[in-house]
């Protein structure tokens, strides 16, 4: 499960996959801006936007289920923001418009991340001179998310293999200790990674 969550890019030999990362990222940014700036009740325009995205999704030949699953994973955030608008006057309409807009934008991002390698996006950020500290942090985060996820899975499995009771309190306790352990291990790993970076000439 965590693989699907962490690794959106799915290799297919489609026309969309072959497009340069810069073009896709630029297009996605333009799409998001247009959708965000549209007046609230532009339902035809929303429909057209959705049509474009569905067409691109079809061309990318990624399984619709995989795309839908990823969209569902991020949807709660959009829903949370949209729910707040219910408290305003004319709330229902604002709610519907906000939810539609954010869903379209999120779908656009899901599509971008599913058809473009993360490393290509990082290289793009580098090229357009996004501060290097931010790009390095993103690169390291992406690299070690997988290591961390594997480490967590191993620890949870090890715990489970020696857990003989079903009561909730002890399950919480063991989860807490897994999290604490993970924190300690990550900070130790960070030190080792930094040493490895220095060993190959970083900041010297």
């Amino acid at each position, binding site marked *: 499960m965590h693989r699907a969550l962490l690794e959106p890019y799915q290799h297919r030999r489609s026309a969309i996959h072959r497009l340069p990362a810069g073009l896709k990222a630029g297009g996605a940014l333009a799409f998001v801006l247009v959708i965000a700036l549209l007046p609230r009740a532009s339902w035809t325009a929303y429909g057209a936007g959705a049509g474009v995205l569905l067409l691109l999704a079809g061309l990318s030949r990624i399984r619709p289920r995989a795309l839908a699953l990823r969209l569902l994973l991020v949807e709660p955030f959009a829903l949370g923001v949209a729910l707040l608008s219910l408290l305003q006057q004319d709330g229902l309409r604002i709610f519907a418009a906000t939810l539609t807009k954010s869903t379209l934008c999120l779908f656009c991002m899901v599509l971008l991340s599913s058809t473009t*390698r*993360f*490393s290509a996006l*990082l290289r793009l950020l580098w090229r357009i001179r996004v501060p290097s500290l931010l790009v390095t942090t993103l*690169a*390291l985060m*992406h*690299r*070690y998310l*997988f*290591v961390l996820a*594997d480490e967590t899975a191993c620890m949870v499995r090890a715990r489970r293999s020696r857990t003989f009771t079903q009561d909730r309190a002890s399950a919480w306790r063991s989860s807490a200790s897994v999290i604490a352990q993970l924190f300690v291990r990550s900070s130790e*790993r960070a030190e*080792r*990674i930094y*040493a*490895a*970076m*220095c*060993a*190959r*000439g*970083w900041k*010297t």
Partner: protein
Amino acid sequence: MNALEVRHLGYHYPDGTTALRDVTFAVAEGERVGLIGPNGAGKSTLLLHLNGLLPEHPAAVPTIHVFGTAVAEPQLAAIRARVGLLFQDPDDQIFCPTVWEDVAFGPLQLGLHGAGLATRVERALEQVGLGGFDERLPHHLSRGEKRRVCLAGLLACEARLLALDEPTSDLDPRGRRELKGLLEALPVAQVIATHDLELVVELCPRVIVLDRGGVVAQGPTAELLADEQLMLAHGLERPHILRHRHPH
């Protein structure tokens, strides 16, 4: 000139525990030396000293020289280009998003760009048998492949002294055999810290035994490793491969 000279090296952990005491040895250019000893003997700590990652605060008198240059500021950048350190866990060492970028990391720090950088990276990847792995993601590689990417990262810097920390740990027999072949073919000085005593017999004519932070013996591998008493006294054992060798 020796590739490496360590003279009276001592080190205490920040909590005061002695990690290394009075360590003295030398490695000739192109020589392969095995560094063996029980867990906690100080092998990894010693390797970290070889390119100046330890001690945290430089000693008043430099105790380590690499190709005649003291391991101390301001020569540290030059030292790190010459000494390639292979870490125990490849996941610590491979920190870039793709294989190509990771191998290019060292040369980039050395100021290489463009075609020169590309050639250097391609050559290093070819050398470790990973040609065509450029765009592969580190977390999709096997343990053995990761280890070879790490080695390529060091070769791309054109390191002249390799300090290898447990290079064969958790490799399958094929991975181990391939790595052994690679190390054997490299014409650079190597310090191999390992528990894989058969590897030491196969690769290193000379061995250093480290225990509790001190050198307890150094000399010809066949001689030291055949000394059952010495081996057992320091948490080691006479490797199987020596039992089958005829003494004459």
